[in-house]
Structures are given as C-alpha cells and as structure tokens.
C-alpha cells in the first residue's frame, strides 16, 4: 500500500527531527517534577501526581500534534519534495492520508512512552499501577488525532504560522464547547444561532476529557469511551474529507 510507504517515510522524517526529542524530554521532565509538587501537598500526593501527569501527556501531546502537523504538508510543498512523489503513480489522497497516518503513529509512540514513565512513577510511589488512568490516556490520544487532522487540514492551504494559530484556536475553543452550548441555550436570536454554529463546527473536546474523573476515582463507563471514540472518528473523517478536497484542487507552484 502506497499510503503506508508514505506514512513510514513521514515517521522517519519526524523521528530524525530534533523538535520531537525536545518536546518529549520536557514532557518526561515535567512528569518527573510532579513528584516534587506532590511532596508539597499533604496526604494528596498521589492525586497531584496523577493529575499533573495526565495534564502533561495531554499538553505535550497537543504540542507535538500542532507543531508537527502544521508543517507536515507545507514543508513538502515548500521544499518541493512533493514534486517527485506526485510524479509517481500516487494519488494526492494517498499522499495526504499517508502523511497524516505517519504523524498519528508518532503520537501513538509518544503517548506510550509518556504514559510508561507516568505509570512507573506511580508504581514507585504507591507500589501499584492505576490502570483506570489509561482510560483517560486513550481519550487523550483520540483528542490528539482530532487535533492532528485539523492541523493537517489547515496546512493543506495555509502557512504554518496561520495554521498554528487556527489550530490552537480550534483547540482552545473546543475545550469550552460545553460552555458555549450552555451560553447559547440561555440567550436567543442571533447569539443563539452563532453559538450553535460554533458548537457544531468546532470539535467538542469535552468528550475526550475524563482526566478529573479518573483521578478522583469517579467511574467512567465503557459506553462513554466508545461514544467519544466514535464521535472522534466521525469528526476526523469529515475533516480529512475536506482536506482531501482542498488538496486535490490546489496547484503546487
């Protein structure tokens, strides 16, 4: 499959880039630092570590998704490396999906490394693993893939700088989507229409955030996780279809 050939090459490209290691290094440093912070809090040490660890995985994962995602396609066009690929019997769709898949693979490996460090710190302190936390990690990964698809979509027609700003805006506003919906329900007329448009266009990232729940031991049902993942897949599919349509039409000058 040509998609996988391109995905593999994208994987290599990111692996051999230094930015990844910098971000990963800081992520692990921060997760480690949560131990110190936990020491400051009386009795709640483990909760603080869990809370901070999950936040780190989410934030640094998002950083990788956005930073790498926005330049993924742009760089190929800018450096004209795409010329030789499109000249081969490869469709633009295959190219774009391959790039996307390569980055998703990188994110997966990063998440595994980060949560591995995270769980081993928890094991050192409490002598047991908290596997409930992995539910949150799975949904963080789903969220990262959603963000990646948005970054890739913007990078098919925009510069990395603009794509970065747009994607960041989607990420931040997407985290408040529930509040936006509530705001819309309390208002009327134009404001209501406006908020509902935003609510349905932007990803509802609240669906992926169960960090607080798992840290405080509140149960999270498998139905909820399944629902969130299906929502994610649908959202990603739509964004990727839009990306492909844009990418198909553009000229590589």
């Amino acid at each position, binding site marked *: 499959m*040509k998609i996988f*050939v391109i995905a593999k090459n994208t994987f290599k490209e990111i692996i051999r880039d230094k930015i990844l290691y910098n971000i990963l290094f800081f992520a692990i440093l921060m997760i480690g630092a949560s131990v110190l912070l936990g020491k400051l809090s009386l009795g709640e040490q483990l909760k603080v570590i869990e809370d901070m660890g999950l936040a780190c995985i989410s934030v640094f994962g998002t950083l990788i998704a956005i930073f790498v995602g926005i330049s993924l396609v742009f760089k190929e066009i800018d450096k*004209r490396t795409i010329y*030789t690929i499109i*000249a081969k*019997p490869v469709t633009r769709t295959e190219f774009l999906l391959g790039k996307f898949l390569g980055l998703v693979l990188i994110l997966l490996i990063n998440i595994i490394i980060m949560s591995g460090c995270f769980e081993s710190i928890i094991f050192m302190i409490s002598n047991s693993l908290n596997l409930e936390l992995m539910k949150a990690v799975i949904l963080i990964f789903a969220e990262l893939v959603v963000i990646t698809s948005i970054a890739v979509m913007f990078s098919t027609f925009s510069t990395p700088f603009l794509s970065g700003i747009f994607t960041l805006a989607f990420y931040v506003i997407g985290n408040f989507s529930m509040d936006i919906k509530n705001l819309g329900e309390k208002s009327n007329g134009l404001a209501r229409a406006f908020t509902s448009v935003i609510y349905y266009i932007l990803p509802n990232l609240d669906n992926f955030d169960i960090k607080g729940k798992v840290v405080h031991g509140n149960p999270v049902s498998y139905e909820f996780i399944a629902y969130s993942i299906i929502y994610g897949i649908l959202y990603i599919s739509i964004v990727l279809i839009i990306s492909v349509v844009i990418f198909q039409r553009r000229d*590589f000058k």
Partner: protein
Amino acid sequence: MAAIKTEGLTKDYRTGFFLKKIRVLENLNLEVEEKEIFGFLGPNGAGKTTTLKLLMGLIYPSSGKAWIFNKEINDISAKKEIGFLPEGPYFYDYLTGSEFLNFYGGLFSIEKKRLRVKVEELLETVGLGEAGKLQLRRYSKGMLQRIGIAQSLINDPKLVILDEPMSGLDPIGRKEIRDLIIRLKDAGKTIFFSSHILSDVEMICDRVAILVKGMLIDTVSVNDLLKEEGGTIEICVSDFERSALERIREFNKKIINRGERIYITAGSESEKDEILKIIFERKGKLISVTPQKKSLEALFFKGMDKGKGKG
C-alpha cells in the same frame, strides 16, 4: 504513438490582491516522438517548468489537454511509464541514498528483493555506489542531481522527463549528465528535458522546441539545422604563412589573428574546402574545424525579439 502530446495547453495564474490573470503558457501544441531526445529550450521564465508541472499533474491546465503514451495525464496509470526529475535538487535530506531510492521503489510497489538489486544497480549507474550509505544532507549538488536521476529511473520508465538537469553543475558534472542521457537513449528510452543553455541541447538532442514568454516559437530537428545553409564553420590553424593568408583573404574577410593561431570563419561548405586546400598546400598546421550551429542561436534570439514585443 507519441510519447508526449499536448493540445492547446494553456495555464493562467492569478496573482496579487485583485487576482490579476497572468498567462504563463499559451496554446502549446507539442508532440514528442518515442525514443528521441527532445530538448525544451527557452530563457528563464519562458514557461518550461510550468509545462513540465502540467504534464506531471502538479498543476492543472486552465485549458487544453495532454497525453502521455496516449493516456490522458490525469490518468494515474500514465505515471507508471514516467520518470521525473524536478528543477533544483530538493529531496528528503534525512534519508540515506539507498533509503531514498527504496522509498520511491515502494511507491511503485516493486517487490523487496528485486528492489534491493535495482537500487544497487542504479547507485552504480549514476556513480554513487559508495555514497548510498550517506544521508542526502551530506551530498554535493552534483551528487544530489545524480541521485535525483536515479530516483527517476527506479521504475525503468519509457519516458524520462528532466527539468534543467544540468543547471548549477560544473563542466565535469554536465558531461556526466550528458553521457547518462545518451546512455538512456541507447537503452531505448524517450528523454524530454528542459534547458536554457544552447550548447547542452545542441550536443545531444534530436529535436528542439523553443519556448519564449509562454509561446512555442518553433520545433526544429538539430540535424536539419546543421545542414542548413547559413551555418558557418570555424577553422583554426597555426604555423601559417602570411602570403598564404593573403590568398584566403581574397575571398574571405573573416580572419582573426590571436597570437600564434589564426581563426578563419568559412561561410559555406565549398568555402571551407577551398580554405582547407590552401592550408594543406602551404603545410599550415590545422588545429580544428568546428561547425558553428549559428542557426539555433539565431532562432533563439529571434524568438526573444518576438516575445519582447508581446510583453
């Protein structure tokens, strides 16, 4: 069957705030025969790269159509028969030479074992056998150009399209690329390459198309050009007596003295024979006889003048 055929190929770009239309290629009708070396000649900005990008499907024509081996260019299977080297070497610099070729082989779904042999073979062909293990960021410009050509040959294409394959190379590099192109022709491939340098094109091409300001000025056969009247011949001679020179000067005024050597420009074949006869009679030391393919140059500049009027 034509290797490349275009019909009324036209490309407009829109630029600036008001999206002003700029025509970069106008109504291009071109036909490249199988198994020939076809030169695509024109000054910078003539629309050569635009044409090649259109053929590769990197940009879409505003109007007109193009075929490669009778398949329309938007048919993805047409690309199985093509090898393409874009202008200026821009490649994945984090890959090593052999990784780079393996990657492109993968895009053709070439079976692994066969690909490994093919990669070795190609690295040898372009003279990069040892450098296969080096990352491309350590390659020199000439090496990049050669690995780029290797990349374009990975699928053993029937048609090889090269965009400015000799630009930015030193004389040795240029010669290597020229030899490679001739070897490809001997292997039965069609080669279509663009250049803005006359001598490169003259030396190896069977036919040449001249493009200026987006318009095709002419398509000519290089052999016909050589035979054509008006092509001059430069004769270089040394150890030549002054009195003998006077005899030549009777019918030929184009004589230049440069130290020991004397350069005589003959206007026709018969004139050349006459001059050579005198040189042999007087035992002058003949150094070289070089046909000056002036007509291609003349055509080039004629086209430029025509283009100037337009833009």
